[in-house]
């Protein structure tokens, strides 16, 4: 490593914490002096110094510009993070979301002044219902996990409403995303694992054996987190329904099948949709997302409040239970206000842009690209399950056995090669998992370059260059970071030296 005097390295700038850039008294915002008034704060004292640093506007712009340049992003490169659907985020979405007629609406304005916004919610709701074939949709959940919570609450509400034996058990496949068991557990259910078959699907017989009148729901992911379609889904749904339980589907992978099959036709009772995956709203380094939940007829009465109601083009918000609105059985709020409107604007913009035909083609391209990766790499890496896969291709680390190179090492080597690593060590059902999701928005050229690089790296691993891998990455803003030390003595905020 070439050391520099400044600590910068060409265009890779060293950047201190804002606290280390403090110029006391400095501010990047000019505000008029407050008019002199008699304070009305009551008994609570005005606070003393807070400890925030002061920076001018130019320093702030530079700080965040420099930080941004230390990030990987879809805009900058291939980001095949399985299960995360890092696809193109159209800029038209951003432009539309910033229209003052959407962005600058207060959630509690009189309804007459927000008819267009209610129409927006209703229109997107229609799209989601049409695309899934489902009877109803809850628009308020803020993300996928929140949607799971919403869906499982509705299931709980339905069981409560219908009476019958207490249903405390929820069955979840081992390959499920962590949010599934976490959600079920948070709601007080006992979570039980459903074993998988040799070919990476739910073991129908085993599932049937576990089903019973104490089971509230089965939570499946379909396509599942191995990137495979659950072939027995109709039989599964039938068995679940026969047991009086509901079939919850984790819809994080809906992007593989939009326009190709409707979850309603598969017997699904509730499914969240991650707008920040399938509907191209940006992930923003962690969020915000949006996780509307579609419901079958059976669960439709249990959609939470608030709901947008269309009275023939005149929209209102059902914020309290009301027979006229069909919300007599609705349960209460998932969060404040009416949902992630900013995300709805983006998702609707995307839907209108693609149209029904484009969405169907997008699914096909996502699946095609994943199968192409699977076909091209399965000679180099071990694919634990037969294809065709859906939108993502799963490999395990069998081929790396004995090389001293792990899945993690391969991921870190990819960083130097200019690629974001695939999802690693998830799903847990295979050893050293590598889950590759190219999405539909990558060119063949980009995918081919990724494939060639993977082949080269695997060859290198097999060629005995373990040491070289262990020292990767070398070309990123940071080398490998010590996560153990971070967890052992957590430093979770800046503290004045």
């Amino acid at each position, binding site marked *: 490593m070439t050391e520099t005097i400044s600590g910068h390295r060409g265009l890779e700038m060293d950047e201190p914490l804002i606290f280390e850039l403090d110029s006391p008294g400095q501010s990047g915002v000019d505000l008029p002096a407050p008019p002199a008034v008699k304070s009305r*704060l009551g008994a609570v004292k*005005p606070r003393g110094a807070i400890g925030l640093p002061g920076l001018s506007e130019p320093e702030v712009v530079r700080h965040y510009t420099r930080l941004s340049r230390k990030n990987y992003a879809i805009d900058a490169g291939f980001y095949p993070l399985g299960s995360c659907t890092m696809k193109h985020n159209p800029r038209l979405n951003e432009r539309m979301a910033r229209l003052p*007629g959407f962005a600058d*609406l207060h959630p509690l304005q009189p309804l007459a002044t927000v008819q267009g916004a209610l129409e927006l919610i209703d229109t997107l709701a229609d799209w989601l219902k049409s695309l899934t074939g489902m009877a109803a949709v809850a628009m308020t959940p803020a993300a996928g996990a929140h949607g799971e919570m919403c869906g499982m609450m509705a299931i709980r509400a339905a069981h409560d409403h219908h009476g019958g034996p207490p249903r405390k058990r929820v069955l979840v496949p081992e390959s499920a995303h962590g949010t599934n068991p976490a959600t079920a557990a948070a709601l007080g259910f006992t979570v039980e694992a459903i074993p998988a078959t040799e070919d990476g699907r739910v073991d129908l017989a085993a599932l049937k054996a576990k089903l019973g009148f104490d089971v509230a729901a089965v939570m499946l992911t379909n396509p599942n987190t191995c990137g495979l379609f659950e072939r027995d889904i109709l039989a599964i749904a039938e068995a679940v329904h026969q047991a009086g339980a509901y079939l919850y589907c984790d819809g994080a992978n809906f992007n593989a099948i939009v326009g190709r099959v409707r979850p309603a*036709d598969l017997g699904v009772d509730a499914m969240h949709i991650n707008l920040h995956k399938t509907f191209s709203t940006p992930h923003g380094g962690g969020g915000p997302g949006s996780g509307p939940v579609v419901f079958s007829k059976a669960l439709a009465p249990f959609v939470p409040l608030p709901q947008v109601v269309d009275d023939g083009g005149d929209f209102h918000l059902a914020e309290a239970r009301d027979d006229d609105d069909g919300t007599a059985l609705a349960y209460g709020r998932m969060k404040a206000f009416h949902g992630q409107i900013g995300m709805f604007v983006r998702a609707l913009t995307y839907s209108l842009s693609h149209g029904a035909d484009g969405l169907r083609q997008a699914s096909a391209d996502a699946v095609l690209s994943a199968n192409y990766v699977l076909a091209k790499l399965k000679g180099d890496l071990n694919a634990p399950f037969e294809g065709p896969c859906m939108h993502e291709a799963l490999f395990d680390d069998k081929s790396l056995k004995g090389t001293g190179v792990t899945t993690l090492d391969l991921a870190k080597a990819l960083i130097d090669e200019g690629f974001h690593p695939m999802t690693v060590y998830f799903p847990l059902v295979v050893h050293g998992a590598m889950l590759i999701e190219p999405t539909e*928005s990558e060119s063949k050229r980009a995918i081919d370059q990724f494939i060639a690089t993977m082949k080269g790296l695997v060859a290198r691993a097999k060629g005995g260059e373990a040491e070289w891998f262990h020292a990767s990455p070398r070309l990123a803003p940071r080398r490998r*970071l010590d996560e153990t*030390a971070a967890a052992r003595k957590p430093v979770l905020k800046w503290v004045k030296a």
Partner: protein
Amino acid sequence: MRYLPLTEADRGAMLAEIGVASVDDLYKDVPAAARLAGPIAGLPGHRGELEVERALSAMAAKNVAAGSVPNFLGGGAYRHHVPATVDSMIQRGEFLTSYTPYQPEISQGTLQYLFEFQSQVALLTGMEVANASMYDGATACAEAVMMANRVTKRSRALLAGNVHPHYRDTTATLARFTGFEADAGPPDPSGRESLVDRIDETVSCVVVQTPDVFGHVHDLTALSAACKAKGALLIAVVTEAVSLGLLTPPGAMGADIVAAEGQSLGNPLNFGGPHLGLFAVREKLVRQMPGRLVGQTTDADGRRGWVLTLSTREQHIRREKATSNICTNSGLCALAFTIHLTLLGEAGFTRLAQLNHAKAVQLAEKLGDIHGVRLLNDSFFNEFTLRLPRRANKVVNKLAKRGILAGVPAPRLFPDTDGLSDLLVVAATECTSEADMDALCRGLGEVL
């Protein structure tokens, strides 16, 4: 189709490489009966930017943007002026189009700003540790109660009547389905409710908001002592983050957990979402807290860097034993928040808070002069409650027709509670001009 890079030629070559004849063959695991033969009926086909922009703009044009008229709405969402730098920075693709920072070597941008965000939130709230954000203030509040239940191993939460009704409702919903008790008193527009006497050894936590939903400012010191005495946690809710620039923070008044809404800094109103949940706790509670945490460490060359840490609390590691099911949070809203706060700095943030308070005081004085209008608050920050001589809903609707967004009628907040129909909650911020105030006074004078 502009978003799809594959050409027909590419598709053909890729299918050949895979060894199938058509894409339909790749869907062979989908039950044949359920497979769709073509685009879903009833939905339009693809459209160009110009057409889509027209369709969306037409919808947007049916709404009255708050900033286009005098507006006085608060009640948990506040219209502040966000410097242009904020939106410019958060639109950088490296921030906008990156995922959760799972690969720290190429995510230092996100990780560093989250670390700075955590530090700022800890300072603002007066707490020791803050996480990297929750969905919004309401879910943060509900998660705080769940956390208190876990920590205290009790299952009865006491909620003040003047906690924002959406926060109460969100918490009550969780309570209903997860089986704890959420004991909330009725809203108290006078702001005089006292919870101290109702705390006993069964109570896991007391949830109180300051400034509360009617604008009253509360000293939490006595409540905190009472909680401590009974082994309950004190959860402080803040819906107007700007108030933390002027008021003694909850941490300094003994709160154990702060659940707050951060929208006021950096984020537009967005008709209610996405907003930004802030979550801060005492250090000793950190391993029970929900959400992501960024921690400091060093890399193989000994350089300082940041990583996601203590993730053994989280769903992707601990699954059914996780402290929360949250995964995606409000990252980009947190970025907007931290940029805005960094721009403001100590001096700017303090002044902003003073300005908000001063504007509200001015407004309260002007409105207090109107015949028949009564100010209910002894104390307030930038929001207060008026008793009108008529139904607030009607007044607000009439004024909306005159191009004034007069505030939030209490019945809009509490649709299930009687006796609040003549109350109007009114907010002012640095954006509220004298002309706006005069317009409201004139308008009220006309419709009352």
